[in-house]
């Protein structure tokens, strides 16, 4: 397996534990060579040349601990995760050595099994990676057409427009550009003065909030049915309301944009609030 793993990374500094290990020289202390403590453990396990599932865990633990001890003796800086693993393995070892009835709660056999399962999974993935990389890879072993002509789909717009759109566009243009003549037609309006008088008079009688529309002259009045006149009244009343608010005689409130505009008399005692500028 180590050959396979090494192949996957050919060209890199990492050479794998290729040399036949002897107990003493087995440990070259280059932690950079391993991808973490699990990787180191897997490497140590592989040297035992036994099925990973039958790996004698205690031996493995001893080897790992010896390795770490050696590294410490050489004052190599050990990454924290290697030390954590060492501590965990030391604990595992002591638990495994205890007589069965004294074994602590996380069953050490289970912990050992878990470690084996993890090693087996890492090992399986490492082999899978090597087999994957050894396949006929595009651009390395097999090649695509070097100069494909390319498939092209030319998108064309089919423009759509109908007669109505055409004519209304022309109408729009003509309107926009014809000389604008403003003729101020003589028409009935409610003057600001009369609105001011009417609103302030009604406000004097009102006890509570009133909607602005309630200040308008009643529609029943013969002359007030003309919608233009009503709009004029609305506008003038609105301006009158603003004017009264400015003079501190009324306050205005509007709950929401385009919501009803309400006003009421402002007494000196009442604090000013909800002012609408």
């Amino acid at each position: 397996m180590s050959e396979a793993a090494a192949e996957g990374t050919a060209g890199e500094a990492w050479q794998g534990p290729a040399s036949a290990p002897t107990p003493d020289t087995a440990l070259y202390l280059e932690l950079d060579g391993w991808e973490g403590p699990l990787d180191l453990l897997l490497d140590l396990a592989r040297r035992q040349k036994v099925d990973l599932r039958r790996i004698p865990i205690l031996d493995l633990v001893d080897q790992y601990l010896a390795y770490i001890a050696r590294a410490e003796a050489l004052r190599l800086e050990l990454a924290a995760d290697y030390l954590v693993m060492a501590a965990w393995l030391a604990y595992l070892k002591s638990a495994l050595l205890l007589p069965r009835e004294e074994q602590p709660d996380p069953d050490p056999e289970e912990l050992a099994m878990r470690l084996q399962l993890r090693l087996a999974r890492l090992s399986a993935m490492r082999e899978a990676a090597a087999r994957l990389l050894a396949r006929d890879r595009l651009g390395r072993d097999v090649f695509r057409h070097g100069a494909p002509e390319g498939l092209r789909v030319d998108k064309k717009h089919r423009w759509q427009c109908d007669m109505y759109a055409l004519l209304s566009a022309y109408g729009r243009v003509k309107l926009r550009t014809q000389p604008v003549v403003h003729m101020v037609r003589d028409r009935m309006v409610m003057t600001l003065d009369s609105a001011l008088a009417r609103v302030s008079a009604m406000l004097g009688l009102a006890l509570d909030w009133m909607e602005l529309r309630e200040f308008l002259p009643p529609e029943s009045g013969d002359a007030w049915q003309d919608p233009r006149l009503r709009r004029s009244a609305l506008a003038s009343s609105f301006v009158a309301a603003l004017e009264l608010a400015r003079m501190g005689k009324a306050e205005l409130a509007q709950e929401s944009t385009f919501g009803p505009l309400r006003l009421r008399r402002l007494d000196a005692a009442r604090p000013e609030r909800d002012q609408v500028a």
Partner: protein
Amino acid sequence: MSGEAEPAPFAGVPDDLARAVEAALFAATEPMTVEAISAHLGAAPPPAIRAALAELAAHYTPRGVHLVERGQRWLFQTAPDLAHLLRRDHEEPRRLSRAATECLAILAYHEPVSRAEIEAIRGVQTAKGTLDILLEAGWVRIAGRREVPGRPVIYATTPEFLVHFGLPSRRDLPGLDELKAAGLLDPVDDALEAAMSGSGAGSGEGDDDTAPDTLAPDEESA
């Protein structure tokens, strides 16, 4: 195509050299000479390569891909009769933009007009692409140049324009009076007022995506 010499109507399994030549030419990014192929395949003798090329060319003759020689260089390419497959047109219906519709309308009523004249009538600048769209749609053509300083290009509508809009001739476009009668020339103000007076709320029209329609330069408010 020089490779049609020996017809090999049933192409058996190609030999190793033919396979190698086939693969090399397929993977090559440029057409290759016999010498280049030879160098590529570990100095295979050129005559053998020529034979392999002839065999391959014959093999591919009836297929969708051909092996052809161009200036002593060989390459695979799709069969000429299938060239139409490599480029397909895909039509997508699309509504003419508001600006383009206005240009088209102006063109229809005032043709031939230059772009500057269209802008003068529209009262807003007209992007170059807008006229291009009308040209692409086939409704507008370039009708020459106006003999004034700058000799601007002038545009006119095409027969397809009449066909598309179902008009026997340009004279059948409704006149201004008819447009007015149809309400298409009503000032927006009045329309707005009409809408407002009922409910007091109706929002106006909302066409504001063109540039400020303020002033109309208006040299010929036709």
